């Protein structure tokens, strides 16, 4: 290390002083973020998608390939989230000023809608599943591929047989009786887990019953007429007894989402509350027992089956800021209306759409029947459209519910939820 070529030093320093002025100097920036400019007539549409065990990066790349072939001028760049998920990554990108053109998996709420393209005047948009329900002030921002049934209880048929349960439970009392029998027969009655699973499952399980007691739950909470935690307190108390009785594993918080799914599929537990996308995982799993499904139970005296928790499958939004509006609209239209694209997405993630015929596994057929038999659909989780709860409700709810496993009382949990909601409105 002798003298470092003095002539280089001032040059480098001068370069730095200009900060932005020396792109060609040391390192090239050709791959910078500002994609989307056309290069020789080629337009790039950046699409931020959700990556899950069902929906891998390879799946997404393959999905859009036919679209690219049919539209030689459009190049679709599928981007995986760099944060915890799309919900984290999109705000980061918006803040950074390099938002994608299309985003999958999120739905418009009051905050996001301002950033999204209004699709109301697109003739194809209003006929997509749940588009009207998810509209915000009558404007359509989110369009999806199908419907996910949320309030399903999958069960291990041989466990039910061995425990002597001849008919799936229809009320919570029957569910608890069944869990008692299953526990006595040596099974873990209900598969729960940590991650985001804890809160999700409780919402899924209680949708049909809650929707009959509070038909406009989301709206009422938003309007301050109802307290989210307080209204859920009876369910929390019930759940607490399940933990105490060992109907759910007290160490479940250590299980990730995929762990829980694997545990149920390998026959370690008897029931698993999950959305319809579980059928996609089920069809791929090798197992020596059969899995059945029934709609989530309701309270005594309520109508069964109750309203089914329903969400939009593969919701897409287009960013208002996109420099390639036409190409982005074309892509999204193709994704939600092209028969092959729709079928592929429904199959890949175990979702449903009225009028789309595809090959069903026996379990998928049952789910379709449950969907057909449900009297109505009810928003799940944070809800959608005008009935959306404050941003982050799902995660906060989940964190609070997990408190039941670590020694908080149902009342404390309910108060925690309400405190959170109060703090955001």
């Amino acid at each position, binding site marked *: 290390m002798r003298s470092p070529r003095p002539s280089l030093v001032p040059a480098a320093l001068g370069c730095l002083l200009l900060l932005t002025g020396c792109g060609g100097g040391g390192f090239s920036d050709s791959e910078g973020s500002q994609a989307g400019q056309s290069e020789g007539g080629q337009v790039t549409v950046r699409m931020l998608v959700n990556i899950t065990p069902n929906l891998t990066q390879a799946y997404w790349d393959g999905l859009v390939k036919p679209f690219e072939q049919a539209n030689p001028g459009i190049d679709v760049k599928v981007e995986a989230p760099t944060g915890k998920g799309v919900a984290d990554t999109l*705000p980061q990108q918006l803040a950074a000023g390099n938002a994608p053109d299309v985003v999958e998996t999120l739905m418009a709420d009051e905050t996001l809608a301002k950033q999204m393209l209004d699709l109301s005047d697109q003739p194809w948009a209003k006929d997509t599943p749940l588009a009207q329900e998810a509209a915000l002030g009558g404007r359509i921002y989110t369009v999806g591929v199908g419907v996910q049934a949320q309030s399903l209880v999958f069960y291990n048929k041989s466990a039910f047989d061995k425990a002597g349960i001849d008919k799936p439970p229809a009320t919570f009392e029957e569910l608890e009786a069944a869990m008692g029998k299953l526990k006595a027969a040596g099974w873990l009655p209900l598969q729960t887990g940590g*991650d985001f699973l804890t809160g999700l499952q409780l919402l899924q399980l209680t949708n049909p019953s809650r929707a009959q007691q509070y038909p406009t739950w989301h709206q009422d909470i938003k309007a301050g007429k109802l307290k989210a935690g307080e209204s859920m307190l009876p369910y929390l108390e019930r759940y607490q007894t399940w933990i105490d009785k060992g109907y759910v594993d007290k160490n479940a*918080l250590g*299980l990730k989402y995929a762990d829980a799914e694997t545990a149920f599929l390998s026959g370690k537990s008897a029931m698993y509350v999950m959305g319809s996308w579980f059928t996609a995982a089920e069809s791929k799993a090798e197992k020596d027992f059969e899995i059945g499904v029934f709609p989530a139970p309701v309270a005594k005296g309520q109508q069964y089956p109750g309203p089914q928790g329903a969400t939009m499958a593969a919701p897409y939004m287009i960013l208002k800021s996109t420099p390639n509006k036409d190409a982005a609209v074309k892509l999204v239209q193709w994704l939600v209306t092209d028969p092959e694209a729709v079928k592929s997405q429904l199959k890949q993630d175990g979702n449903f759409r009225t009028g789309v015929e595809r090959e069903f596994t026996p379990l998928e057929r049952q789910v379709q029947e449950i969907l057909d038999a449900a009297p109505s659909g009810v928003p799940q989780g944070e809800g959608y459209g005008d009935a959306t709860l404050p941003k982050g409700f799902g995660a906060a709810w989940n964190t609070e519910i997990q408190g039941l*496993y*670590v020694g908080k009382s149902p009342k404390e949990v309910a108060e925690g939820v309400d405190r959170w909601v109060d703090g955001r409105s």
Partner: protein
Amino acid sequence: MTLTREAPPVVTKPPGPPKRRPRDGWANAIMVAPATVLYVVMLIVPVALALYLSLTDWDGFSANPAFVGAANYVDLLDDPELRRAALVTLLVAVAGTAGLNLLGLGFAVLVNGASRANTFFRIVLFYPHVLSALVVGFLWSAILGTNGAVNNLVTRWGGEVLPFLSDPTWATITMIAVLVWAGFGVNVVLYLAGLQAVPHSLVEAARIDGATRWQVFRNVTLPALGPSVTVNIVLSLVTLLKTYDLVVSLTAGGPAGQTQTVAYLILWNSFHDARLGFGSAQSVLLMLVTGALAFVVTKLRRRGELAVHQ
């Protein structure tokens, strides 16, 4: 990590009057300016920006954030999430600092001296520092998770699952233990450097006077290590107070949000919940606490060292 002596004399007067030349002023400016400008633009301006943002209700992307005065700070005061995260962070910082320094100093004494074996020990103690906290977290969660290597073995032998990461108390302890596992090698190296500076003659003299090993350590080595201890403690505290990566990969803040640190909460609030103003207020708070703690520790230690030297 340089303070093995008293704080280094940062400014030394050149002996004898230097010949002043008008060009020197310019040369000084040229040599100082680039670093200063960049430092101001990318560190001082952001700090000022964080201060400003903390007074708004910005979500991070909408066009006009509203000025809300001290509202975010008022919210901070009775935010149960922040209270819990602050507690976790302090616990991690204090217990972690104690662990890092006790192990660091202890092992430094044990592997002091030049030998092949000692070199090997130092490498092994130090190597986790080469790995990123993210990798360390993923690795340990694969070992200690409910379905991890250890629990597989335990359940196979008929035992109950050990809730390393699924019980809040266990998970907090696990996190601190992993932080110490990954970091104390650095403290070993730093304390070793400090040990080299302990006057050999003093140690010899004490030995000849018949002092035991412990007495020598307590009365000769430790006082001479004073500045090293200060640097190590301050460094550990400052590092641990911003623990984030390990939370992401080891516990993801769980179970029940009980291992979220302040740094984790800041990024969560700012982006996931799109409450950037509120997150900025938390940032400002963390900066103040970090600065204050480092300052207090340095002052206390300096007073302690002076007392020792008298």
